[in-house]
């Protein structure tokens, strides 16, 4: 316990404290001015908006992939299972360049999507695509083991009681995997908030339109405006922290209902 606390302090709390202290260098008024500047606000909107979009996609797609990987046996399943981790293993910059190449107007996907009216590269959608790509494994890998542990007999009982498949999913299966799914989505969202490498290539980085907060932090750092960089970082931190807290609260509330006291 003592050791745990020590490492927690060293690895997590210390940098965060340093960050917050840094913002106070310039005073609270300056902090407020930085984070409410139109460019910063626009970057929050882009970042959070795209992260929400990306998480919405990952939550559905990740759940589907986890389900397919655990419930079906088909040739190539092991390969698909391994491929799920690629976004974890790939340097995010590589992912960013690859996605840009795919979705650019002359890319494999872009050449069909753009004439059809879906512009992905250099738009908010592009930002969301990059975020989804890097964060979907969080959902797959948290949900998969839980689906694996579901006992078939429980679903079979539901069937003999008259429940059709979708009823069983909605009333039995999903509630059982919900805590894991929520955790996976939260991690995906938090990761998306901070994603930098994969996003900046495909985003186009137009201030007020596709500029993410992480990039704005980077720009402020390059200008040696450390307090401004730290101020924006604190906001991202606060959003991530708030999300984690909320989901934790939801989970412990759910857990309390199921687990023996």
């Amino acid at each position, binding site marked *: 316990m003592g050791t745990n606390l020590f490492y927690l302090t060293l690895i997590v709390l210390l940098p965060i404290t340093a960050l917050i202290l840094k913002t106070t260098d310039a005073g609270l008024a300056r902090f407020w001015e930085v984070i409410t500047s139109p460019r910063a606000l626009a970057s929050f909107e882009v970042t959070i908006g795209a992260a929400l979009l990306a998480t919405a996609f990952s939550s559905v797609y990740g759940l589907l992939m986890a389900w397919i990987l655990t419930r079906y046996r088909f040739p190539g399943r092991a390969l698909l299972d391994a491929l799920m981790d690629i976004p974890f293993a790939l340097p995010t910059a590589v992912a960013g360049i690859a996605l840009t190449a795919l979705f650019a107007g002359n890319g494999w996907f872009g050449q069909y999507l753009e004439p059809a009216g879906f512009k992905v590269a250099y738009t908010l959608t592009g930002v969301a695509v990059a975020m989804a790509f890097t964060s979907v494994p969080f959902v797959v890998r948290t949900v998969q083991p839980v689906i694996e542990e579901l006992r078939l007999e429980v679903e079979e009982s*539901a*069937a003999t009681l008259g429940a059709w498949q979708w009823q069983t999913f909605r009333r039995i299966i999903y509630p*059982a995997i919900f805590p894991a799914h929520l955790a996976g989505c939260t991690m995906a969202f938090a990761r998306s908030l901070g994603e930098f490498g994969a996003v900046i290539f495909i985003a186009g980085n137009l201030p007020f339109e596709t500029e993410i907060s992480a990039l704005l932090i980077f720009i402020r750092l390059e200008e040696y405006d450390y307090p401004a960089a730290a101020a924006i970082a604190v906001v991202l931190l606060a959003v991530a922290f708030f999300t984690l807290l909320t989901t934790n609260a939801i989970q412990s509330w759910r857990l309390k*209902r*199921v*687990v023996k006291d």
Partner: protein
Amino acid sequence: MGIDIQQLGKSFGPQPVLRGIDLAIKDRELVALLGPSGSGKTTLLRILAGLEWPDSGNVTVNGQDWLDQPPQTRGVGLVFQHYALFEHMTIAENIAFGLRVRDRARRPANDVILAKVEELLDLMELGGLGKRYPAQLSGGQRQRVALARALAIEPHVLLLDEPFGALDARVRRDLRRWLRGLHDRLGMTTVFVTHDQEEALEIADRIVILNEGRIEQEGTAEEIYDHPASPFVQRFLGGVNEVPIRLLAGRIGVDGIEAGVLKRMAVANDNATLFIRPRDIDVAPNPNGSATIQTVSFLGDRARLDLAFDGDTTVIEAELDRDQLRTDKLGRGQRVQLTARQGRLYDDAAL
């Protein structure tokens, strides 16, 4: 509802699991499926529930083909050995589940459902536990919740797969008597799977003994106990002595055991084995007897003796009243004479 099973066959891959099962279960009958592990009991039950489909054969219920119906419409109550409760729902919600998932036309009103749940909680002696979660109950209570959940849809057929397997001996005994009472009161047709022959003999109207995917014997407890159809059944019913026989002038004899009463049994040659139940062996103190008492184990009012012959490794088990131990002063190391009162003879080719 009567269930008619004809020539049911089922394989998993190359391995045949059911090999031509024919069985007619009468309306309101309580049938026990008994058999060793892997004999296909669960598979048969799952086919009846609609969770598995046979490769061949028919299942008809009240003259209707059951195999083209999914589990959802068969209206069977199914209870697994490990309960399979919905852990994230309260006990009351578990029990209500089968009613809540009905389509609007057939779903009872909410207060009717709640009343039904209360009624079942009382019936199962689970009063006051409706708001708990499954994790907060004991094994016996969970098993009764599983039963209540299955009964909520008012099934005509109740299928139980080793329902008491995970419970301790006392709870098992109580629950199985209670199950028998419930079966009689609700007027269902019940099929239950068990490993435990005592359980089957005690509560079933009829016992079906499965072995390697075939029905070895079916009948009432008396029929099966008094007239086991095969050496398998006799062995399965528990502790039986198997001794080789000798043929003396056309009459059978057994080394070390007096078998006078058995002499009229007909055999063609001496390739046969005599099965004697421990309770059918008389033990009399006799200094010139051929056997020695090796151990005495107490079984409540009765005692079991392990007996050995000189220069022989076979051990014969005999069971007798503890009273007799006392009056005859039987104890370890004592020499005794054994007499078989009855037994069954099986050709060695059938073993």
